[in-house]
């Protein structure tokens, strides 16, 4: 079997799906999305779905502002319910971190409704009980926060894309590429060959593996996050504020409400020195690695001590040295090979902007947002030694 189309998108996570939708919306015909497992089955489906505006970069703040409005309007615009819930989002910074006031000022100038809380104010911000403020610098209270189901966002984009004529092929795994005269001329899969004028790698956790088929290596690393579903022993309304504790680098976590009166916790990488292979990584979290985390969480949020642990599962994410994804045509790579790498999971909240701007970039239109921060060619200047810090703090 051989299928010829204009655009092949590899991966139906939040990024690939959004790009498929925006390209189709702009009138691009013959778009095929190749998905190995299922829509949103990788990092997207295991992402926390947090929507917030705490970024130190003005461009990023503009983008997340745009995206959070898109999530609010998603149901109306896309005809698909993504379980969006608006709630307050309180980000706890480490004591002594400089420049917070300037960042808040910048965020406010971009229209973010954010308050700067002292530790004494943080202590009483949670309606379910006191917060222990040891080691906390500030609380950044974002009144425009929220959360949604990232899986449903991917499915929502896919469904609308299908209505616009996009073909979504599930169970199709890319095995190799054929390159001729500097172009990818064929995408070889387990279900036959595909060819197109443009090939977009939006394979998330699998993006590096695809790149390696083309001899492309970029400084990206997979890392693991631990998530747990908790059953609170108190009423836990879906719009109770989310706590994102970034005060201690070794114990970064969030606690947010989840549907059905439950709560979701997320913890940063359980072992920063371990490489994870998405094909062999199992979705579980070993007890001894998270016990210390639970201890920190219970200390920080004493009211959660009695929350029951229903299930714990691991999620994989991909990072670059500066924590921003890499998007665009890479110099030296085949000229019709476009990439969206290392946006897995944590950039779910940017999916609408990814879709919109990537479509604009590909069609040579004026870009609605400055994407230089995501330029894939910047990654060439990094090496593996540049990895450090953490997503919550460095972003």
């Amino acid at each position, binding site marked *: 079997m051989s299928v010829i189309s204009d655009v092949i998108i590899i991966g139906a996570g939040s990024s690939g799906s959004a790009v498929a939708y925006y390209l189709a919306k702009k009138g691009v015909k013959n778009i095929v999305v190749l998905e190995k497992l299922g829509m949103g089955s990788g990092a997207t489906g295991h992402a926390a779905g947090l929507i917030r505006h705490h970024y130190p970069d003005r461009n990023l703040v503009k983008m997340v502002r745009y995206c959070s409005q898109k999530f609010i309007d998603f149901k109306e615009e896309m005809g698909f319910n993504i379980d969006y819930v608006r709630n307050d989002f309180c980000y706890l910074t480490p004591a002594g971190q400089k420049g917070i006031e300037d960042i808040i000022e910048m965020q406010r100038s971009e229209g973010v409704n954010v308050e700067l809380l002292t530790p004494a104010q943080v202590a009483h911000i949670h309606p379910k009980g006191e917060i222990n403020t040891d080691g906390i610098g500030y609380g950044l209270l974002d009144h425009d926060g929220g959360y949604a189901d990232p899986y449903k966002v991917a499915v929502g984009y896919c*469904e609308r894309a299908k209505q616009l004529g996009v073909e979504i092929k599930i169970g199709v795994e890319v095995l190799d590429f054929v390159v001729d005269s500097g172009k990818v001329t064929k995408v070889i899969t387990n279900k036959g060959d595909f060819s197109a004028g443009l090939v977009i790698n939006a394979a998330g956790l699998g993006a590096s593996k695809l790149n390696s088929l083309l001899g492309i290596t970029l400084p990206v690393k997979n890392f693991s996050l631990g998530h747990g579903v*908790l*059953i609170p*022993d108190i009423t836990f309304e879906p719009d109770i504020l989310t706590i994102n504790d970034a005060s201690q680098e070794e114990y970064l976590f969030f606690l947010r409400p989840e549907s059905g009166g439950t709560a979701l916790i997320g913890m940063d990488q359980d072992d920063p020195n371990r490489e994870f292979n998405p094909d*062999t990584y*199992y979705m*579980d979290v*070993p*007890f*001894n690695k*998270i*016990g*210390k985390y*639970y*201890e920190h*969480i*219970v200390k920080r949020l004493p009211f*959660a*001590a*009695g*929350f*029951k*642990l*229903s299930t714990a599962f691991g999620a994989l994410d991909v990072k670059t040295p500066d924590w921003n994804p890499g998007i665009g045509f890479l110099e030296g790579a085949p000229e019709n090979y476009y990439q969206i790498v290392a946006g897995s999971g944590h950039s779910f909240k940017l999916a609408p902007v990814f879709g919109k701007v990537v479509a604009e970039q590909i069609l040579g239109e004026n870009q609605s947002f400055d994407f230089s921060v995501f330029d894939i060619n910047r990654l060439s200047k990094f090496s593996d030694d540049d990895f450090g810090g953490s997503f919550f703090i460095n972003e």
Partner: protein
Amino acid sequence: MLNIVVLVKQVPNTTQVKIDPVTNNLVREGVPSIVNPYDMYAIEEALLLKEKFGGKVSILSMGPAQAKEVIKYAMAMGADDGILLSDRAFAGSDTLATSYTLSAALSKMGKADLVLCGKQAADGDTAQVPAELAEYLGMGCITYVSKICDIADGKITVERTLDFAEAKAEVSMPAVLTLNKGINEPRLPRLKDMVKAMYMSIQVLKSNDLTLDEKRISLSGSPTQVMKVFSPERKKSGYVLNGSSDEQVSALVGELIKREII
């Protein structure tokens, strides 16, 4: 006061179990382990009995060092202590060698009033260890218990649910019971329980900590030989439902009704 020992086995999680094509053994390396789901009912029942009669719940397991994880989970549920039999000298044990080794550990642990087990392990499915263990310890054994009715005068009365019959049975203590799925609802540990369990220690016993006849342990003490273990052949007969989500759901529900599944 009841001194209860719960036998817990760590089993590989999910369908990711692989079989070594050469040795025909299960490959456990890299596969996450969970408490054998049937053992969860034994842990819960032990905790319920302790709450009613007082006493102590100990967890006993045999396996590699990573089996500590499942003992810790049982401790987070409320078990008081845990012992892990872990030694290369135990490797390759079949059910007979395993139950022999466990019986040696139980003898060392002192008097147990009750030994509770899940009805079988989710990986091996033999359901042999509890009965063999009872034999070694000279205890009575009742399998497939669906209800513990009463404990009085050194006797325990239970209901058994079998495939085609129900039975009421009585046994003198000490005794070994295997419990059916659904006898209770295993509790979930709270965050503070997980923290507490993290600080509890597990006693690890090696072969020289026990009084053992070396001919009766490990592969040499195992009369059972597994000739071949293989994955069942996948029979492809599925088809894909098309249409909108609503259409797919109604087609699926219609099919399930047609096949009398729901």
